[in-house]
């Protein structure tokens, strides 16, 4: 019942100062709109990047190395020995993951786990007297398609043709262009140990990443083992699991099980993920500043109304309105501006998102047109609305309190 009075008085006073009300409401609306647009872009690009990190590469990579160098047996057996031996090198071992077949089998038995043995190394690809240094990845095409997005990025041929062709390689578009090496051409691949093999191009991919497109070569793991002269050896086990968020704990588990250094995608991209925190802080402080500026507008209009309406406040109080009732009237005004600003801001936000989504641009080195990735989540809208309400009611609070402290006698006496 009382709220009807408060709202009707609040609304009447706001409507009376229509222009100022519209301006301060627009201030809030723009704040909310830009908040939605900015945080959609920020959150969208963050999600997109994480998606790329998660999807384009294995969740976990087990490497043929250990986090700490293995000690000589004597130091393990007698840690407190009296005689000190200097210059004892860590125990030597043959590079490579031993018995990788058994590890793959054991990992593959678990649900939602895809594990692939790979052998990586360096080689030179030579064609018509030109040569290019290349990273060799000996892989299993059946599994590779689940682990990375190479399959999706294929422009000619396919990854699966590695299986049918003898001595096949898959190269990037950049390398293809540099060497003039096309589909079904025979390239010469030279290993660091001097082994030379002639291999046939069975596929060309384009990822948009210059480094990969110019320098990555895929082949069957058994061809890589021959080329790099590492028979029966793998130096990477690449793993994809069902829930990427579990990668860290999964990596820790398998590392303690087999001892080989196992890196989760989070560990590899730690600095990257840390950057997001900084970026978000900057984004939200700027957007927060917009809201603060908007709330000054609200503060301004409500203060003006309170100053102007001191007589009305006095008469309402003499009628029997309590201080709290008066405060409520002006808080309602703040809330009205906040709510209307929020609704308008949502509309502005939708329009801005529509505009942003329609922007097309090209990044040098990437052939396809790009769109800004947007996160059109409910969350952005809810947060924007929340900010608008809080800043509006917060801005109204002080003048509302001032209004409730008006002493009717002073006003009436002064007016007479």
């Amino acid at each position, binding site marked *: *019942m*009382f709220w*009807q*009075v408060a709202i*009707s*008085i609040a609304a*009447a*006073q706001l*409507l*009376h100062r229509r222009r100022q009300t519209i301006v301060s409401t627009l201030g809030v609306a723009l704040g909310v709109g830009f908040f939605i647009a900015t945080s959609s872009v920020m959150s969208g690009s963050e999600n997109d990047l994480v998606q790329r990190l998660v999807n384009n590469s294995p969740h976990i990579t087990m490497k043929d190395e250990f986090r700490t160098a293995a000690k000589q047996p004597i130091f393990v057996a007698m840690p407190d020995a009296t005689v000190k031996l200097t210059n004892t090198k860590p125990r030597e071992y043959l590079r490579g993951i031993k018995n990788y077949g058994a590890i793959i089998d054991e990992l593959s038995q678990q649900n939602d786990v895809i594990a692939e043995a790979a052998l990586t190394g360096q080689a030179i690809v030579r064609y018509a007297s030109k040569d290019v240094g290349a990273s060799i990845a000996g892989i299993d095409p059946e599994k590779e398609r689940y682990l990375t997005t190479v399959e999706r990025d294929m422009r000619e041929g396919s990854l699966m043709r590695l299986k049918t062709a003898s001595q096949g390689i898959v190269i990037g578009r950049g390398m293809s262009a540099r060497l003039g090496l096309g589909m079904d051409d025979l390239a010469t691949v030279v290993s660091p140990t001097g082994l030379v093999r002639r291999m046939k191009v069975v596929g060309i991919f384009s990822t948009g990443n210059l480094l990969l497109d110019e320098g990555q070569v895929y082949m069957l793991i058994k061809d890589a083992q021959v080329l790099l002269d590492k028979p029966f050896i793998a130096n990477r086990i690449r793993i994809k699991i069902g829930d990427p968020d579990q990668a860290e704990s999964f990596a820790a588990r398998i590392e303690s099980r087999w001892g080989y250094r196992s890196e989760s995608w989070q560990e590899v991209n730690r600095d990257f993920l840390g950057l997001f925190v900084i970026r978000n802080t900057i984004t939200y402080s700027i957007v927060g500043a917009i809201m603060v500026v908007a709330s000054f507008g609200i503060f301004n209009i409500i203060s003006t109304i309170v100053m102007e309406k001191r*007589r*009305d406040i*006095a*008469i*309402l*109080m*003499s*009628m*029997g*309105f*309590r*201080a*709290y*009732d008066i405060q409520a009237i002006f808080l309602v005004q703040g809330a009205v501006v906040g709510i209307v600003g929020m609704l308008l801001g949502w509309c502005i936000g939708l329009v801005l998102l529509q505009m942003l989504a329609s922007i097309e641009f090209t990044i040098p080195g990437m052939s396809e047109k790009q769109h800004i990735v947007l996160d059109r989540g409910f969350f952005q809208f809810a947060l924007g609305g929340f900010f608008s309400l809080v800043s509006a009611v917060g801005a109204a609070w002080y003048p509302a309190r001032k209004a409730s402290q008006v002493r*009717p*006698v002073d006003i*009436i*006496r002064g*007016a*007479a």
Partner: protein
Amino acid sequence: MSDGHPLIEARGVSRILQETVPVMLVRDIDIGVGHGEFVSVTGPSGSGKSSLLYLLGLLDVPTSGSVFLDGEDTTGLDADALAAMRLRKIGFVFQFHFLLPEFSVVQNVMLPMRRLGRQSEAEMTERGHKLLDELDIADQAKKRPDQLSGGQRQRVAIARALANDPALILADEPTGNLDSKNSEIVQEIFAKLVREEGRTVVAVTHEPGFAEATDRNIHLVDGRVDRDTKR
């Protein structure tokens, strides 16, 4: 209604305004106003007429002494309790009409009823129109206050003071801003409220004509009751 005690009573009321030099607005006032009395308060300017009225109307709180409304001691009541008493029992009319410019005439009259919240919207609207009708301004109900003449506005203010059917009407120079014709109309309305409806009216005025029309005149000088004459 009348059960021995006055409707509004001041006992030893003083009010000191704490400025750099303290100002004594009224001192040692002892008066009681019974049900159905029509009282005028007169005195030279600065004699404390209005201050006394605000104290009796619970708008201001005495520095010492007590104000009794309907036999109830209001000393020590908090602002909210005083507001609640004003809402139900007291109607104010000031020299300036103080109508809310954003609301229509009838909406202004309904404001105290809305705050009290005891009636339905339809009942409140009906009562609002009825009050305006009694004051002969029913045809102005839908207009904004600024479309009315001074005399009409003051009548709307009186209608608003009557909204919650208070026993006590306090008026602070209600005719101070009106021409003689409208002054007369307002005076007659107050007289009618007393004679026909049995309400109590206490009006501060410096118009001799108004004071003569009342049943009792309290004359203040320097914050004290100088004369208290009943006719």
